[in-house]
């Protein structure tokens, strides 16, 4: 198996996996989305809410706010099920306080966390609006969790792969250029120097087959390379995409280890 990184940004990672297989790529994708732990607000204790927004709506909005949960920030935090406390304790939870008087919009920057590292990723998320003399006061508890339990614990936003496209143009092609005009993503281009259709941006091909449909003699065919995938991981900023991938691989290898110990007669 080979991996080439195609694009690397703060919150987005695009890479190509070669000589792998579908089940493996899908396992990685599903674990990235559903089983990589992240911190999110779970309980909200409303002390005062005089705004027009209902308590539960505000609590839901708070839950969806991404909090920094990379290994450095969340290092000391335990998963609630692995913690020895009964309900919650400082070892497995972080508390955040919101106190604001109107008028004005309350943003995530107004949330103050007891842990300086575990704070909202974005400061500009509007939470609620307060009119003159209205006040909001609440205490929220954030915990680690996984995407399987609630979407707020999903570290990824767009996490997907597609087949690596493979375009073949027959030698008999009459250079009518219809396929190049039909392509919505400008994958094909007519090369005037050599008088032939050229594939200029293969990885951008979405395999829509617009070119195949427009070709009168079926000289062009679109297929995919078996075992090659273009993988995209985009995160909400709470965990860098590389770390999501590393943690997903850890989860997968732990699962494999469990099967091995079972087969060897252990428990």
């Amino acid at each position, binding site marked *: 198996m080979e991996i080439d990184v195609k694009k690397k940004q703060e919150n987005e990672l695009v890479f190509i996996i070669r000589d792998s297989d579908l089940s493996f790529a899908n396992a990685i994708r599903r674990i990235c989305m559903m089983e990589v732990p992240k911190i999110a607000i779970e309980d909200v204790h409303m002390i005062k809410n005089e705004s027009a*927004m209902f308590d539960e709506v505000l609590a839901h*909005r708070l839950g*969806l*706010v*991404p909090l920094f949960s990379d290994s450095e920030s969340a290092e000391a935090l335990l998963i609630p099920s692995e913690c020895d406390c009964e309900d919650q304790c400082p070892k497995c939870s972080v508390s955040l306080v919101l106190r604001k008087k109107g008028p004005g919009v309350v943003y995530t920057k107004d949330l103050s966390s007891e842990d300086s590292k575990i704070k909202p*990723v*974005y400061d*500009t*998320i*509007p939470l*609620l*609006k307060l009119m003159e003399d209205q006040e909001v006061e609440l205490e929220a508890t954030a915990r680690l969790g996984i995407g399987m339990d609630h*979407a707020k614990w*999903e570290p*990824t*936003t*767009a996490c997907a792969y597609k087949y690596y496209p493979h375009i073949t143009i027959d030698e008999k092609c009459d250079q009518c250029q219809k396929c190049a005009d039909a392509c919505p993503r400008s994958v094909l281009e007519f090369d005037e120097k050599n008088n032939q259709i050229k594939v200029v941006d293969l990885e951008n091909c979405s395999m829509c087959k617009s070119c195949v449909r427009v070709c009168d003699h079926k000289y062009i065919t679109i297929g995919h390379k078996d075992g090659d995938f273009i993988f995209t991981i*985009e995160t*909400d*900023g709470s965990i860098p995409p590389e770390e999501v991938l590393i943690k997903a691989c850890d989860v997968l290898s732990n699962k494999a280890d469990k099967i091995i110990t079972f087969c060897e007669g252990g428990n």
Partner: protein
Amino acid sequence: MIPVRCISCGKVVSAYFDEYQNRTAEGEDPKVVLNDLGVNRYCCRRMLISHVETW
């Protein structure tokens, strides 16, 4: 209030809401602003374009 995240993909679109509103109010083309903010997918773009702030 704008939803915190894109309803379809989960991108945190509300973080860009104020900037989008201010810049489009000044007469900038929404398309340019959205591209600039890195809101690339059409599911996220419709969240900002179609939102009406009522009060």
